[in-house]
């Protein structure tokens, strides 16, 4: 596939994966080091950050949700000539699209063989795989996840789970057939809580010409440990050389071989007034500070230090002199994001 490749550089104990996703943006080759994350967006913007502020944070990839654009159909932005990168003023970033919000899966209505129900500010909307692919061909994002029949009710029957796997595979076939050259499709692996269905979904998806995989833990109403165990079943049946995206997992996802995470976490923390303050050191242990400070707490009224003290940070870096680079960078991103957003949030 032109302008898009994934190099798995190193695996430890097959589960820990270090890789590079290489993509082409604005005629430049760009690299997304993995493990990494898709920055969470609402209506195509990173909450609270104007583009000049976003540029001060070293992020490369954003996750965009079609659901946020579907109040009117077709979305007005599909009339814009020049693609979604330009419309959103995100021309230098890798844009990954999915239908539903990766931060929360709101139950709205049932899906059928023909469409998926989505939530908008104006209520329920339906979107068919044909419409989805048509919008994607106009938007021209770097990657999008094929449409999936996610189960948003508790304890579904085996029949329902099978139907979900079948629908998702059928939609994937339709999607692969209709997607234009240069846009990369990630197949969504489903199977809910059924072992044999997860295996079937993984094997069938892997046999198709997809550029990567998406594992969605949001429809699994269970603990993150249980989610991880179910995802592991799927991962065992996926080829090693293609990137895997997962929703609804925290950092533990690193331990099962996920390359890219959705992360609404910083945005959620921001909306609670939390400024993140933790670092992950070489030995995997968190630094001594609290995970976050609650900036709405009155005790910070007279605290004139920054959220994360720079000198404190340097001390920790030099004392261990071994900080995991990606973690460090990621955390700093989060802190910056939070800081800007908290700042804005408090002002509101």
């Amino acid at each position, binding site marked *: 596939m032109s302008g898009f490749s994934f190099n798995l550089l190193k695996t430890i104990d097959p589960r820990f994966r270090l890789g590079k996703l290489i993509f082409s943006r604005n005629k430049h080759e760009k690299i997304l080091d993995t493990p990494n994350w898709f920055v969470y967006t*609402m209506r195509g913007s990173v909450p609270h950050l*104007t583009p*000049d502020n976003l540029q001060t944070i070293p992020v490369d990839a954003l996750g965009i949700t079609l659901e946020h654009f579907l109040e009117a159909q077709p979305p007005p932005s599909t009339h*814009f*000539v020049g693609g979604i990168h330009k*419309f959103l003023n995100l021309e230098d970033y890798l844009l990954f699209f999915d239908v539903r919000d990766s931060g929360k899966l709101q139950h709205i209505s049932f899906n059928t063989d023909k469409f998926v129900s989505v939530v908008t500010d104006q209520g329920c909307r339906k979107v068919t795989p044909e419409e989805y692919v048509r919008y994607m061909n106009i938007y021209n994002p770097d990657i999008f996840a094929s449409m999936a029949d996610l189960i948003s009710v508790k304890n579904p029957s085996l029949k329902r789970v099978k139907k979900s796997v079948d629908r998702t595979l059928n939609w994937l076939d339709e999607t692969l057939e209709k997607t234009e050259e240069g846009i990369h499709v990630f197949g969504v692996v489903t199977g809910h809580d059924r072992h044999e269905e997860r295996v079937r979904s993984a094997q069938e998806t892997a046999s198709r010409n997809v550029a990567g995989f998406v594992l969605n833990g949001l429809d699994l109403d269970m603990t993150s440990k249980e989610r991880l165990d179910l995802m592991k079943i799927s991962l065992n049946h996926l080829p090693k050389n293609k990137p895997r995206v997962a929703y609804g997992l925290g950092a533990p996802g690193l331990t099962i071989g996920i390359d890219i995470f959705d992360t609404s976490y910083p945005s959620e923390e921001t909306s609670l007034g939390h400024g993140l303050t933790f670092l992950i050191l070489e030995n995997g242990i968190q630094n001594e500070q609290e995970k976050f400070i609650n900036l709405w707490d009155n005790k910070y009224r007279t605290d*004139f230090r920054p959220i994360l003290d720079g000198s404190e940070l340097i001390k920790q870096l030099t004392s261990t002199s071994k900080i995991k680079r990606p973690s460090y960078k990621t955390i700093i991103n989060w802190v910056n994001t939070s800081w800007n957003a908290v700042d804005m*949030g408090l002002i*509101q």
Partner: protein
Amino acid sequence: MKSALTWEIIAKCSTSKARVGKLILPHGPVDTPVFMPVGTQGTLKGITPKQLEELGCQIMLNNTYHLGLKPSQELLEQIGGSHNFQNWNRNLLTDSGGFQMVSLLKLAKITEQGVEFQSPHDNESTMLLTPEHSISLQNSIGADIIMQLDDVVSSVTTGPRVEEAMDRSIRWLDRCISAHKKPDSQNLFAIIQGGLDMDLRKKCVEEMVLRDTPGYAIGGLSGGEEKDIFWRVVTLCTDLLPKNKPIYCMGIGYTEDLVVCSALGVDMYDCVFPTRTARFGNALTSKGSLNLKSVKFSKDFQPIEKDCDCVACKSYTRSYIHLQTTKETVGCHLISLHNVAYQLRLMRNIRQAIIEDRFPSFVKQTFKDFFGSEEKYPVWAINALKSVNIDLLS
């Protein structure tokens, strides 16, 4: 009295009373006529200090009443003032706090001592803002320009109360001057009162000019009075006030008001309007404002304003901002950035026109663009401009 500013008129319009000045304040220069955006609680909502600096803003307003409540005087003292607190290294102006007492609070009572008001903390006890207390608060905030506490009456009030308020404002100015502890780094401005009564305004100017403050404000306007009287009060004040001091007309921010008042010789303005209206989805342009919430912008792929170089106009279409506005804070931020850029550009254009001595034609063009046709020109603006030899209808 002592002054911590210098002010020099660098150009005058040969037709009207408009002038361009260079005001040097403790935190740097300010080109006048200037519009000062309002950062009520120590921040211009949604805009970082860096963004505001990049827009070319030289002076911002903070509200004493809000900062006094939060973060509080004690804390501002500890951190060394509002500049430090909000990381803003350019100029600040604070109001006296009196206006908020009257406008925001129920049961505010004004006595010779000060403004007595119901405590916003418990809504039971009463608190008192005196001229001394206002100045003490403003000394702690540390703004480059501070305002006297004045006795504000609604601009539509008539009768003896107006005269009482004017006389009391003079007495309170004296108390403010005596209470002011930092005349070397903060400039205290007097506020001319007197309602819509020309004789009272005249008397107030005479008395206050004797106090020789570093600058003067025209207060008690923009409260719903007839605009045809408003401009007459403004022009009377600019006629009577000394020519070597900056004149600040409080609460002015609409395009036509800024253009007319500049023609009448005013140098400084403030208003919450541009940023408040932005948060409701309204973008200001030289052809009037756009309500970007409206569905008619959903497929409008032009920028808010074609020649604007703000980040909203350089990067986004009206359609994108329509998608965000009133739903995501980014929408508010982008329109706020644009509206501040618009106001600052308008003032820059006013100054440039005065410097190049083509202000009258600039005024005519601005009105033509903004209102579209002559029938829509406000009569008061036509009258006001005629009084300074600019005939909008010729």
